[in-house]
Every structure is written in C-alpha cells, then in structure tokens.
C-alpha cells in the first residue's frame, strides 16, 4: 500500500466514525472545565466588574502582574491541582484508546458507544502495560541517545568561534529529538494496533511485532507519520492565521473566536484518529 493510499483510507475511516471524536471532545471539555474553573473564577472576580475588563488583552502584562501579586502563592497548589487532573486525564485516555483503536480497526462496524466502551475495557490493561513500557523507550531515547548526542556536540559548541555553530547544532539536536520522538510514538502506535488487529495478549510480543513491522518498511511507515504531522501543522497554521482575524472588537468576533477554537480542538482530535486509522490501514495491508 502506498503512503498516500494509507492516509486517504485513514481519513475516510476517520470521517465515517465521528462518534469517536465526539467522545474525545466531550472528555476534553469536561477535564478543561474542571481544571479551568478556579482560573475563570479569578478572572471573573477581578475583571468582571472592572473597566479593565473592557480592554484587557489575552496576554495583558499589566493585569497578569496584578494577578501574580495577588495569587502568586496560590499558583503552586493550582498547578498541583491541574497536574492531578492531568494524570486522571492521561489514565482515562489510555482507557479510551482501546475504544478508539478498536472502532477504527473495525472499518465497517458501528462506532456506537457500547462497542466503543467495550473495546476500551477489553484492551485497557494491555494499553496500560504498553504505556508503561513506552516509558522505557522514552528514557532510552531522551535519557540516553539524546544525552549521548549532546555529549558529542558539546565540545564543538563550547569551542565555537561564533554564534553560528551553537545555533546550528542546537537546532540540529532539536530536529533529531523530534524525529526520534516520532519514531518512538510510531512504535507505540503500531503496538497498540497489533494488540487489537492480531488479538495479541502479550504487549511485549505486540511491541516486537511493531518493531519488526517497522523494520521491514520503515521509511514508508515514517512517511505516513510525518505527512500526518505536516497535515496537522498546516491545519494549525491555518487556525492561527484565521484566528488573528477575530481580534476586532464586537460580540460577533468573540463568538466567532470561540467557535473557531472549538473547531480547531475538534480538528486536533480528528487528526488523532486519522493517525491511528492511517497506520492501521497500512498495518493491515501488510499482514505480519
């Protein structure tokens, strides 16, 4: 299967399963509201009755300085709360991944809630184990490989005669880190797909499948992943370009901005399903 065919089929599958995105969106909104309420209360209390609220900007140094003065000491507890909610969100997403992958791999099947959550429950512990094992990959990648790379380029940077060399090397380091990141994420994605597609109960075997699968056709698989990254970036650029137009005053501008941000969140969630669907299509086209 060609790269573009895999992506096209993945896009088609994702379009046919809008309920998956809806579930992810609802979850996202619920967590957002839970975490953002204290912040919104502060904004409402401080700026709601004030004329400053008429001209406050999204990043208003004058007001942010006042907020830091008043709520600076509450910042750590607040961040702690967000972290707890974030961990809960992570666990719930691990749970939902089973439903996402399960329903997307069932290309023609329904994406109703019942089978979705059934898949979520069925694959939950295996996905938890994959997540935990993925931490080993992250440690190896960022703790070892990138540190090794840093150690290699450090003498060059420390002995540079001008700013150019450190600039180029540090950005090269970043690029390599991002590419390694994409590879690790790809391995984890294919392992999840293998668990569902092959009914694999051992996550170690699933990871081995994923590695071998990628070893046999690495560049095509990587091309799928990177093209989807480019697609996401393109969507993000479009979002920010259009979003800039909503800066004009007026209720319509505020409402349009609100709607546009939500469309972007939906786009990102949809792209998340496209990543899975396209890679699943590619995986199934090359049975192990």
């Amino acid at each position: 299967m060609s790269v573009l065919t895999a992506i096209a089929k993945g896009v088609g599958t994702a379009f046919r399963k809008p309920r998956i995105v809806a579930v992810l969106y609802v979850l996202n909104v619920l967590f957002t509201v839970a975490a953002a309420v204290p912040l919104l209360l502060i904004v409402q209390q401080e700026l709601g009755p004030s004329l400053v609220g008429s001209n406050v900007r999204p990043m208003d140094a004058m007001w942010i300085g006042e907020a830091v003065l008043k709520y600076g000491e509450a910042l750590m507890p607040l961040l702690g709360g967000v972290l707890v909610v974030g961990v809960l969100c992570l666990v719930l997403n691990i749970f939902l991944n089973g439903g996402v992958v399960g329903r997307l791999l069932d290309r023609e099947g329904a994406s109703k809630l019942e089978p979705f959550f059934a898949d979520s429950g069925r694959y939950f512990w295996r996905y938890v184990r994959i997540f935990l094992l993925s931490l080993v990959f992250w440690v190896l990648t960022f703790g070892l490989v990138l540190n090794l790379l840093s150690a290699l380029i450090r003498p060059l940077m420390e002995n540079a005669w001008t700013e150019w060399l450190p600039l180029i090397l540090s950005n090269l380091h970043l690029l390599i880190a991002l590419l390694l990141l994409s590879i690790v994420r790809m391995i984890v994605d294919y392992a999840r797909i293998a668990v569902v597609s092959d009914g694999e109960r051992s996550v170690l075997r699933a990871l081995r499948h994923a590695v071998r699968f990628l070893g046999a056709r690495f560049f095509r698989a990587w091309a799928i992943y990177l093209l989807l990254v480019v697609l996401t970036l393109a969507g993000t650029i479009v979002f920010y370009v259009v979003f800039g137009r909503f800066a004009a005053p007026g209720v319509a501008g505020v409402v349009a901005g609100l709607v546009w941000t939500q469309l972007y969140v939906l786009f990102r969630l949809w792209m998340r399903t496209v990543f899975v669907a396209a890679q699943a299509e590619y995986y199934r086209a090359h049975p192990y």
Partner: protein
Amino acid sequence: MNVRIFASAIVGASLVLLAAAPFLAAQEPPATPGGPGLRYEIWVELDAAGKMLLGKEEIVWTNPTRDVVPDMLLHLYWNAFKNEDSVFLRESLAETMFRTGDAPDDGEWGWIDITDIRLADGSDLKPGLQFVLPDGPETAGDETVARILLPTPVQPGESVHLRLEFRSKVPRTVARSGYYKDSFFIGQWFPKPGVYEEGKGWNCHAYHMNSEFFADFADFVVHITVPKGFVVGSSGKLVSRSDDESVKTTTWTFSQAMVHDFAWMADPRYLRIERDFIADRDVTAQEYQETADLLGLPLEEVRLPNVKMILLIAPEHKGQIERHFKALRMALKYYGLWYGPYPYETVTMVDPPFRTGSGGMEYPTLFTAGTRLLPSKNQLSPEGVIIHEFGHGYWYGLAANNEFEAAWLDEGFNTYSTGQVLAKAYGPGAVSFVFKGLSLDWFLRVPKIFDFETDRVAAINTVRYDPVTAWSWKFYNRGSYGANVYMRAATVLRTLEGYLGETAWARIMRTYHMRFRFKHPTKADFLGVVNEISGQDMTWLFGELLEGTETFDYGVGAVSSAEVPAARRGVYDRNGAREEVTRKKAEELEAAADKAPGAARSYRTTVVLRRYGEVQLGGDAKVQVLVRFKDGSTETRAWDGQARWARLEFITPVKAESAQIDPQGIWLVDANLANNSRTVDGLKRNVIKLMSQALFTVQLFFHFVGSWS
C-alpha cells in the same frame, strides 16, 4: 612580561602623544569650572596569548576639599575574580535568585597586582600598601580595595602625583570583563582612586555582586598596545595608532577629558564602522521649537552638537549595522533634546564579543550593546539595550551618582528614560520569545507592549522586599535589586511625571541633569529640584514610594445606583395629623410619580472608595474619582485618600454606569488597577474573550496530555 615590547610601546606612544599634544589641547571639550581634580595617563599592553595586561599608570590627584588627606584608597576591581574569598564571589555564590557569578574554572581566575607604586619624586609607597575592608570586617579576605599611606598628607588644593605599575590576569568572562579565545573586553581594569568626600573621607567600596561603580571625573590619556591586526574600541577619542613591526604590535592612543572611567575591547575579527550624528539633519526645526517651548528655554540652548558614532561589531552581525546606528541616533537625539546636549565628540558602541559576557554595560563614551543572529523585526532588540546603555552616559556618566549607595539614581532614571525614547521612536515592542536561538514572536503573535508596563509588573511585585533606596549589596536578592532600582524606581518616576504634569516634569529632569552634570548628585539633590520646579513639597512621596516598602493601592470598593423613592414608608406628622405611609401607599405614590406628565425621577449613586494599601497620599495630593452616567455625562470629585475609606453620594437624573478612581492613570505605581473601577452591572466582552482563550489553552493542554497516552 615582555619588557622589550612594553618599553618600545611606551616610547612609541609617548612620541606620538607629544606630537599630538597641540592637537589634543585644541580638541578637548572645555573643562567644567575648576576642571577635574584627577588626571590619568596609562600605558597598557595586552598579552593575548597569556591573557595578561601589563600596565603603567600615572595618577595626579588634587585635593578638592578643606580636609587634610593622609592616604589614598584605590579600587583593584579585578581582585574580585581572584578567589572565593572576594566579596563579589561570596555574594554571587550565596545568591538565591539569579546566579550570575559562579566562580571561574581552574586557571580562569582574574586578578590585579600593583607591582610598584611611587610618588613622582621616587618615594616608594609599596611597603605601606595594604588591602582594607571599607564595608566592614565581614568582608575579610576581599582584596578589591587597597590603601596607601602618603609620606606627607595632601593639603587642601594640593596635588599628589603617583606612578604605578600593575600586572593583571584577564579573567575568563566574569561580570562583563574577560576574554573568550582572542576576544577581550576590558573594564574596571586599572587601579582607580575612590572619591574623596569632605568630612567623610574616601568613598571606596569593595566590588559587590549587585553593585556598579563610583569614581571622580578625570582627564584620561590611555595607550593600548595589542597584537597587530587586533581591532580596538575604547572610551574617548582615538588620537593615534602606530605599528611596531619589530614586535608585531599596534599601539592605539585614546584621550578623553571629564570622564570617570575608561574601558576598551580588542578583537582581531571585528569590524569598525563610523557614522555621524548630524544634528541639523537628525533633528527637525519643529522638534527644536517644541522642546524649547516645553522646557521654557531659548532655542539656542536646546540645539544639539554633531557627534561621531563608532560601532565595533562582529562580522556575523554585519546585517544589523544600520539598525544599531538608527537606535543610537534616536538616543542621541532624545536624550540630547530632553536632558541636555551630549558633551563629548565621540560615542563608541560595542557589539559584545562572543562569550565575553560583556553585553549591556555602560562606560563613559563607550557602551556595549547586545544582539544575536536572526533578530526579530518585531522586538526592540538590540534597540532597547543600545538606547539604555547609551542613556547611562547621561545617568551615571554625566550625572554621576554613587552606584554603590544609590543605584536607582542611574538605573531607575535610565530605565524610565529608555522607555520614553523607545516609545517615542519605535512604539511598543513584541515580548521576546526565542527558542533555540530562533524568534517565534511572528508565529505566536505575542503582544507588543511598552516598557512601562513590564516595569510596573516588577514594581508592584517587588515592593515587599526592599526600599528602592537601599545600598546595592543590601538587597534581599538580585531579583529585588534589579526590580527595585530599575523598574520600581522607573515606575515611581513615571508616577511623578503623571502627577506633576508633562511640562513641570520635563523641566525638572532637564534642570536636575544640567545642574548636576559632572557632579555626584544624591536623592536629596533630586528632591530639591523636584520641589523647586513643581512648587510642591514632594518629600512624602519619596518617603512612601522610594524609602518605604508598603503597597500603594487605592480602589473603588462598591458602586450602586438606584432610583430615589418618590415616597418613604413610615409614620409622618403632617399638617397636625399623624399619617402612616404603608407599603401599599408607597407603591401607589411611586406609580403615580412614574405616570405624572413631565415627572423627572432622580437616582442616588453611592460610591465607596477604599485605601487598600498602606501608602497614604501626602501633601496636596488627591486622587480623582470619575463617575460616568448612562447618558454619557460624568462627574469628577477628589479624595485626599487619608482615611481607609470614603463614601461619595451623587443625586442625578440618570443612573450611574461606572465609577473610576484615578481615571487619568496618574498613579501607575498602584498595585491593583483592576479594582480602580467598578461598573454598576454587566460582564465585559473582553473578559468573556479572555475566559474563552484561557479555556482554549487548557483544552490544548489536555489534548496534549491525552495524545501521550
């Protein structure tokens, strides 16, 4: 030490200097009345390979006081980098916020030794030279101040002529002095007397981490010998340059009258470019006229001189040459127009050599800027640092306060002035957002803000730690030092400007600068000018906002506006009879009043003002309170702000919409501008927008978390 090189350099340079003497005399700016009581002539050779300076120095000091002076205290600043017993490194290592001065690595220490010191008659003073601890016994171990006992005390008006030889190891980049590979930035490098204060003795503090410097005005002639091919930039004006082919060196001679320090840099790769600030081209007739009108001065007094601008810049920053010159032009123009003409012939701007850590520092007639590869067009960088460091030529360079004891008098004044020039010349600039050396402001659409906004953020958050007027090394930490002496001081000055008005303020700043040019002003001197020009006693403001650590916060506690009832309930004695106005009757009377043709109802608006902070207004100062009504009309009252609260009532034909304290935004130092106003009802559209964007940010965060599952 290579004696032959050194001796030939000195002979060569002296010959050049002799030849140039008549020229020098003709070119030097006129000395201030009395002239400086200090003269230096220094011969220094850079040993680039050994990272050493070898120097000879002549100092002629004239006692300007009525005291008989038995000794002299000398700064030996580079001993701050000699070992971990120095005050500088002890304070740096104990710093809790911004560690800027980690001790140098092995072999990278810096130091200065006086190898010989004599009077002009040959009397050897070296045996009596000893390190002293002007800042107390707790600074024991520090070697940055040395004392010499003079064989004969210096009588008032008499001079003492010293001849020194010194030998210094250039540190590997500490506190804006040092080297990286073949690049050198050399500041605070020569033995320098403290400032003798009548009745008090020598003011000569140790080199502290947070402190900058203090010295007397002097006439300098400096001969710098470097390996041939090195480009040199220095304080003062280049008098001559001569090569010695036998030892492959070049000696650059610079001179400058009426400055209190001398710094230089050397780098073989650097570009040296000159441009002219031509007053008749760079300042319009209208700008001169407006300035003269504002300051109440004759037109001739505000005219500016031409100035030679010299830029030393790294080749990789070549594309930014014009950007550097434009910023310097703006600085020369506005500092000149507002505070007084730049009095020197040259100004040298140095793009700091890579990794010498020398950026963003001021020296008389020379300053270091600071830029990077691929700068953003939206950010005012390097413009901000160029304007700021040039501005120190005024606040520190000319009005030469003691930076050890009153750093706010230069840093605060100059932070304020920088913000004014940037706003006038460029408008607001984008907040810096750089990742891996690349500017991301174009993508992130970071907001553009004025300097006074960020200054205020720091000002309101730092007031709890220290007064602005604390001595430099007595601040809670480096963050408190920076935020107080730079930003809070600037915010207080801007507040003063708002309170006293544009014209009075412009005249205060001009008068203060010109009156104390080539002098060492203090807080009292500035307060004296403020009171004199404004005609008000502003002592209270200095006490509360500069010497105090309390918060300034006035606000509107509550506002309500309701119809005045047509009838009130209760028992009334009317026309000899007692009558009860019942609830029902009152409602009927209200309805009748509403229906009456041409009936005009009135509204009672109650505004409660609060003094949330501990700072109280003083003198004649009052805060204005503006109430805006539904029909667009307004009413303004004043409150002296003495009590903790005040209640104001307004009876008007229409309902109130909002109440606002300090509607003109005079009291920028107010810690909470959000509570300065309250509306009677309604949530603001921008608040909803802000909330929706906050929600969106949190949404993206959770999406990000989810995507890592």
